[in-house]
């Protein structure tokens, strides 16, 4: 994250547009990459944009030029790097998988693997005949596979 990561590029030919507005989009991506919950990222973005608009509105009412208004409003809102740092320091705003990495990376995959054999029974609870056919086919394929293995074993042992 370099010093200008949260500032939009200025247009060099237009001196009056040289003051960059805060780059909320860069802040949004940065917070999501840092594991902040999308819900809080959305809220932060909405509230920061509204806040910035309110500051601009108040400053503009004092008859200050557009160029100066942008500069003052950006300054008053605060450095987006500092805001990002404060958001990231709040562990309670992170996605649960970032708050509890052990559960996210170990327990959840294990739970999914354990749930795999049960899943068809849960999903097919209302389709008993289909479930019986599926079970029968599975048992038959298991028998055929076992039979093939037995035949191979016998051919090795006897051959």
């Amino acid at each position, binding site marked *: 994250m370099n010093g200008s990561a949260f500032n939009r590029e200025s247009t060099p030919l237009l001196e009056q547009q040289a003051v960059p507005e805060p780059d909320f989009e860069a802040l949004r991506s940065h917070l999501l990459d840092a594991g902040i919950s999308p819900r809080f990222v959305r*809220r932060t973005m909405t509230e920061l944009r*509204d806040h910035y608009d309110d500051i601009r509105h108040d400053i503009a009412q004092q008859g200050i030029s557009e160029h100066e208004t942008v500069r003052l409003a950006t300054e008053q809102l605060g450095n987006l790097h500092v*805001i990002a740092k404060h958001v990231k320091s709040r562990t309670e705003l992170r996605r649960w998988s970032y708050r509890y990495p052990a559960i996210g990376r170990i327990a959840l995959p294990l739970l999914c693997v354990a749930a795999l054999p049960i899943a068809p029974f849960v999903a097919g609870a209302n389709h008993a005949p289909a479930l019986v056919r599926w079970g029968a086919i599975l048992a038959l394929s298991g028998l055929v596979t076992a039979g093939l293995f037995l035949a191979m074993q016998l051919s090795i042992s006897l051959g």
Partner: protein
Amino acid sequence: MSGVPELLLLQQLNAEEMYGYELVKRIRGVTGETITLGEGVIYPVLHGLEQSGALKARRKKVAGRTRVYYSVTAKGRKRLGILQHEWQRIQSGINAALGAASRA
């Protein structure tokens, strides 16, 4: 001193519900601009307090714009009491130290 923004936010919101910008302006006014919070920095503090149950947020449409208004919950009032007590303890400690230094 890390509890100062929480103390100020809870204190103001205990009186009435407010949205972020309104809250910053209020704090600036009541502290005589002696305490100026980085304006954008209040949002993570507000969201943290909301997540811990000290504040609740609701969207309200005012003059064609949807604002997020914050108000203090019972848990927040309890937290405010603790922070106020803690702050008074620090304040009296510092006053005692300053008094001792001026007498010396």
